[in-house]
């Protein structure tokens, strides 16, 4: 995707405008995002700069002074400038109610709302009511910018109050039931505003700037009216595509790839839409060459954009290429040492890689920059979790949530910690809140399943595992969980299917991961998990399909010398190793087996699973009167030192039978 110098010039201008417009409306995060993106565009070559300088400094106009394109709006804005500046200062000082009252004092608001009510209550008496209250009835004549600021302040003040009312995290008041009381007012107002526009007398009104649609969409999202919200948000991005917050709201509304494909044609075709598409796909845990390619394209335009670099790192992370993801984040950190955003993901990666000193350093760095940012708290919590100091970890996750209740990863991670602390009740609640914040968080779904499995409520667990598997269809771990759950419920047929899927998924990851040309833990997927194979085999065994069972048992046993991969599978199935989506059993590293496991990293070797398979095979051989085979297998078992007593008994029996048959033969 090549851009000419002129294109880049236009892009820069558009972004500058976007920053100004967003910060005029106190959309700080969007402004920050746009500014970061703007800064990451490399400067033009010196020749061009000179050329422009020759054009004269005098021609330079600060983007803040571009007048509004629409004359009516411009006039209104000019008229309200003083009041606008007042309101903006109030907003900057976090006096939201006061800010709202500058443009929308209670009298006007109540007038507007009551008029609306009367319209609803008595459709016949509309004319009469308007005649009675002509002044109050009409919407105040405000510029869209001021109107947005006022209404936005109202929403924010409502959010603030909502957080205050919820009180302590996971406390008695914190049930997620507290609502933002300003939403109703704002949505009524905006409904009215849009209604006015659609009627015939709205012809003369100036065209919308897009921000009010964004606000309405945001309010609708909060009211869980997703469909309408999506409509308004799409309208907004059509009118003003540079508002990243709006795109982000859209991303949050899309929970499946199909939805994304569905709305893609209706979106405007520009670079923002392109970024949105890539970001949403990353957030949906998609992966593939094309996504990586499109991210690379974007990075060609914005080489140092921290946002895009984060996306790229996350993409690698989701496709289980941890080393590359770690490197990406590390580079990002070096590039923007003061940036805390998304460092929580980095800490997750370091956690999975068990890179303790680095994680400690990261936590130190974060806490030096700002110890009261949710990201810092999550990083520190992760560090403590890695040290198996779960109480402290919970404390830091709680702090993160107190700072920002919508901090998704903190909810999930806190759930993990509660599981470690055997507080299943709190764990379930935490996971539930995580899922409520973001329905795409497969880790929370998986955690929920795991918790219910611990509680031996398999039917419940199955439902959550299925959810997780739906979100990550190519993650073997999900399917494996589904399979073992089904197995425990006695639905062997379905279980076998699920587990086979798991095997398939593992090999899929292997193939995609290799496309990134990385080494390291990914290779371990090159062979099948003996544990899964054993599970499948034992289910077949229970279904009395001996041939299948035997085949899988042999396959399982074959894994011992199958390749140069690790013995990760051992004991994974029913362990509580649920931290993150790590393929390894890192979470249980603090336990005693840690060392032993680490030592088995090179070859598969003998594992519990393969030994079990061997034992089964030996018994099977006894049953089918294949004594030499039984003898061989049992001897191997003795050599491996697993279940020696039983193996010796088998050997004795097999030998005696063989001798007997020898004697018979003679």
């Amino acid at each position, binding site marked *: 995707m090549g851009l000419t110098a002129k294109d880049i010039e236009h892009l820069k201008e558009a972004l500058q405008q976007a920053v100004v417009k967003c910060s005029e409306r106190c959309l700080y995060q969007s402004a920050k995002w746009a500014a970061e993106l703007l800064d990451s565009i490399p400067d033009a070559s010196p020749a061009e700069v000179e050329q422009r300088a020759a054009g004269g400094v005098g021609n330079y106009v600060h983007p803040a002074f571009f007048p509004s394109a629409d004359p009516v709006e411009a006039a209104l804005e000019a008229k309200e400038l003083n009041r606008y500046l007042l309101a903006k200062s109030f907003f900057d000082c976090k006096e939201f109610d006061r800010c709202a009252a500058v443009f929308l004092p209670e009298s006007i608001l109540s007038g507007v709302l009551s008029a609306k009510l009367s319209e609803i209550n008595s459709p016949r008496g509309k004319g009469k009511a308007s005649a009675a209250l002509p002044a109050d009835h009409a919407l105040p004549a405000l510029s869209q910018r001021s109107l947005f600021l006022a209404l936005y302040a109202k929403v924010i003040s409502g959010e603030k109050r909502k957080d205050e009312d919820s009180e302590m995290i996971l406390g008695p008041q914190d049930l997620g039931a507290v609502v933002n009381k300003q939403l109703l007012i704002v949505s009524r107002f905006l409904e009215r505003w849009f209604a006015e526009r659609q009627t015939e007398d709205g012809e003369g009104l100036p065209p919308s700037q897009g921000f009010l649609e964004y606000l309405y969409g945001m309010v609708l999202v909060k009211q869980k009216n997703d469909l309408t919200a999506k409509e308004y948000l799409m309208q907004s991005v059509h009118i003003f595509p540079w508002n990243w917050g709006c795109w982000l709201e859209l991303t949050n509304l899309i929970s499946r790839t199909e939805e994304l494909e569905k709305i893609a044609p209706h979106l405007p075709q520009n670079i923002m839409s392109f970024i949105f598409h890539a970001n949403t796909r990353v957030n949906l845990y998609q992966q593939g060459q094309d996504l990586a390619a499109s991210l690379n394209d974007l990075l060609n335009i914005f080489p140092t954009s921290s946002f895009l670099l984060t996306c790229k790192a996350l993409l690698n992370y989701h496709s289980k290429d941890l080393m590359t993801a770690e490197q990406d984040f590390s580079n990002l950190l*070096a*590039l923007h040492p003061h940036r805390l955003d998304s460092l929580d993901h980095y800490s997750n990666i370091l956690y999975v890689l068990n890179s303790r*000193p680095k994680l400690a*350093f990261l*936590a130190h760095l974060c806490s030096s920059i700002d110890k009261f940012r949710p990201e810092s708290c999550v990083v520190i919590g992760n560090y403590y979790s890695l040290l198996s100091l779960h109480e402290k970890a919970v404390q830091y996750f709680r702090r993160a949530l107190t700072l920002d209740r919508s901090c998704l990863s903190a909810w999930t991670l806190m759930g993990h910690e509660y599981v470690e602390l055997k507080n299943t009740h709190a764990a379930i609640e935490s996971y539930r809140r995580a899922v409520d914040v973001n329905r795409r968080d497969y880790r929370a779904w998986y955690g929920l399943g795991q918790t219910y499995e611990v509680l031996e409520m398999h039917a419940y667990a199955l439902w959550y595992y299925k959810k997780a598997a739906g979100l990550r269809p190519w993650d073997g771990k999900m399917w494996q969980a589904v399979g073992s759950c089904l197995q425990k419920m006695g639905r062997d047929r379905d279980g076998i299917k699920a587990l086979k899927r798991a095997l398939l998924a593992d090999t899929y990851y292997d193939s995609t991961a290799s496309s990134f040309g990385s080494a390291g833990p990914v290779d371990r997927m090159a062979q099948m998990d003996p544990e899964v194979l054993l599970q499948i085999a034992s289910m077949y065994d229970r279904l009395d399909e001996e041939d299948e069972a035997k085949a899988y048992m042999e396959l399982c046993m074959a894994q011992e010398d199958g390749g140069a991969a690790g013995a990760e599978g051992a004991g994974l199935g029913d362990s509580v190793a649920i931290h993150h989506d790590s393929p390894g059993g890192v979470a249980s590293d603090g336990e005693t087996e840690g060392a032993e496991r680490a030592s088995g990293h090179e070859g598969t070797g003998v594992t519990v699973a393969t030994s079990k398979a061997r034992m089964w095979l030996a018994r099977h051989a006894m049953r089918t009167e294949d004594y030499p085979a039984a003898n061989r297998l049992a001897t191997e078992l003795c050599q491996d030192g697993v279940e020696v007593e039983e193996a010796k008994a088998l050997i004795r029996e097999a030998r005696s039978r063989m001798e007997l048959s020898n004697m018979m033969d003679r």
Partner: protein
Amino acid sequence: MSRYLAPARIGLLALIELYTEEAVPTDAIVPVVNFLASHLLDCDLTISSPTAPPDRWAKAESAIRLVLSIRDFEQVLGPFLAADRLPGRRLWDRFLEKLWHIDSLHGLQEFIDRLPNMLAKTKEELRRRAAAGKKPPTSVLLSPTAPFGAFVKRSCLEFSRMQFNHSAELWQGFVKYRQPTAGYWRRRNPQHGRLSFDSVLVNGEEEWGRSTDALAVVAYGNMLLMGDLDETVTVSTDDIESLLEIQVEQLHRYGNRIPAGLRDQFRHILKDSHFIPSLAHYLNYSDTWRSGDYPTAFDHLHRYFDYTMQNRGRLFYQYALMNLAILQSDFGCHKEAVTTMLESVSTARENRDTTCLNFALHWLFHFGRAHPKLVRELESSSMLGTGKETLMFLQLRAKESGMWVLWSSALMAEAKLVMSNGDSVATALEHMVRSSQLNIERNMKTMMGAQLSTIATLWDRLGLAHMSTMTCEVFLRCHARNSIFDDELKMTCRLAGLLAGKGRYEEAFEKIEGINRNSLDSVKASQYWHLFRGLLKLRRDLHRGNLEAADDLLSQLLQAGPESFEPDMVFMIDSLHIEALTRRGEFQAAFNKIDRLISELREDNRDISLRIRLLLNKVHLFDRIDRPEKGFTIAMRAASMAWRARLVPLLWQAIGALANILNALGEFAAAAQLLFAILPRCLETDSIFVVATLYSLLADARMGQAGEVQGRSDAHTHERTEFLTRAHEALDAALKHYSAVEDVEKQCEMLAKKATLMRVMGDDVLAEDCAAKYLVMKRAAVGRNG
């Protein structure tokens, strides 16, 4: 700021780990363990020689040194070789290896996590280990209840309690603490680089390239940018508190001020900690109090109690009032002090705080002894009862509540009361013995000063000067180390006074000047010191007839007013004033002053010895105006009072005065008999001036007797000559003793008398000789004074 752990403590932990790894060679074990123990325990294990003056601030100084710099470790560990590595490696190298091995924040965490391995295992743990197939540990193990073990355990606990940012701060502080050794470490390990203080940075350098520095600065903050300019010190709250406690304890125990250097260092530490314990205000208060800065002391006292008024669920208002009262009385605001103390008493009663109540009553009792006027109204309104009742009450309460110090000092006070009332010596002694038994039973070293000074007083009153001197010496040599500086000062002054009484002024001054100048920082002590020095000088000047200098000194001393001195000292000034007036011949002024003082003393019911002294002064005055017979009754009264109270030195003086009157009345034989009887005993009292006076009186009596013999007939020339010879002997003795106390006027008088005697005896040459000596002496005195 962490509560307990600080970089220095991590150093101690590392050293303990070295010790358990048996890296410490045999010859270094004692110094290393001693070093560790002196920083972990309260006691000091180094045996200081008993003669050397103990350095009381050594502990605080070494604690501060350790907190500030790693050099202390080097001093201890440098000289020894490590036992477990290549030869040539010093123990210091091993220690540094250990410290530099902690190479990241996580390294610190690991270091702390590893610590419990050093602790001895419980049986349960051993069984679990055995079950897991592990062998029991073999290296040196620390019992969890031993000092080292407790320290290790506590450190682990405190670390696990820390918030993350605190442990990060600790890590940063540790990096900074360790940094001075980087140069040395680099010489030993060439691969050591600039960023080696954090291995994550070193490893990241390949990846991050030039932005590594930026990252390091972000993580470590100003520490890296400022370099040496950054003087912040990481200390733990615990360090600061223990330092404060040491200082307050020193202040309380010895009454010293903190040396300036130490104070500055401590301020430096406090500056960087955003936590200032309230005890620091108390320290400031004590310091300003002792330095005599009255308003600031008030300010600090109020601040301290504002912060601690409601501490641990208890009210401390009464203590605040008590401190305030003591402060006020120290600065001479006696009236305010009394009202404040009374309020303290009532508050203590309200709050049922026996301890405070007892102390307050005790203080009030002593205060009442010192300033009877102020307390008199109180006693009459029967709020406290008389002194004796208070004392009984105090003794009872102290016994009940086990406040041994209070009990002992109440007993002592009672002994003093008995003495000053002139009651039975045996009773006084009984109280003293009881108090002494208590002191010894409870090992109250601090009470030794008060006890010995009471005993010395008793010996003094009994006229056993050498016993008194010995008691003072015993205190100064054996007990001064453990007691308040005030006691030491007073004992030294008492000793100097005794020496001066013997006319050994130079030695006396030497004693006084020999007092530790540092301890005289405290304003009260230095005031007392200066006053006593002035008094000694005054006495010497008076004796030497240097009246101008004496006037100078007296005007200064009298100016200070009775508010700022203890009543005993005030009396001494007054009596010297009277003497000066008498010597100058202003008899009327002297007489008026004596009369006034006598009536005052009687009103206040003061020490009986003072009253006798005044009576004797009065008699002396009558003698000076040549009407000795007028003082007869007074002298008789003084003698009988002194006899009753067994005030032996005063008794001899009174008898001397009587003999003088007898002389005047012409009863020479009786006078001579009296004087002959008392002279040997008077010699025991070591008061040379009195002895000299007695001798001169004896000479007078003998001369009188000689005159009588001459008057009767000529036949008794032989007898007359004998009397004259005896008079001559007495005059010689008197002259000798007068010259011992350097009393010029009396010496001249004696010489004149001697010359007359010689002429009477017909030895003109000798008479001329004496006259010439007289003139020389007179001229010398004039020359010296003029």
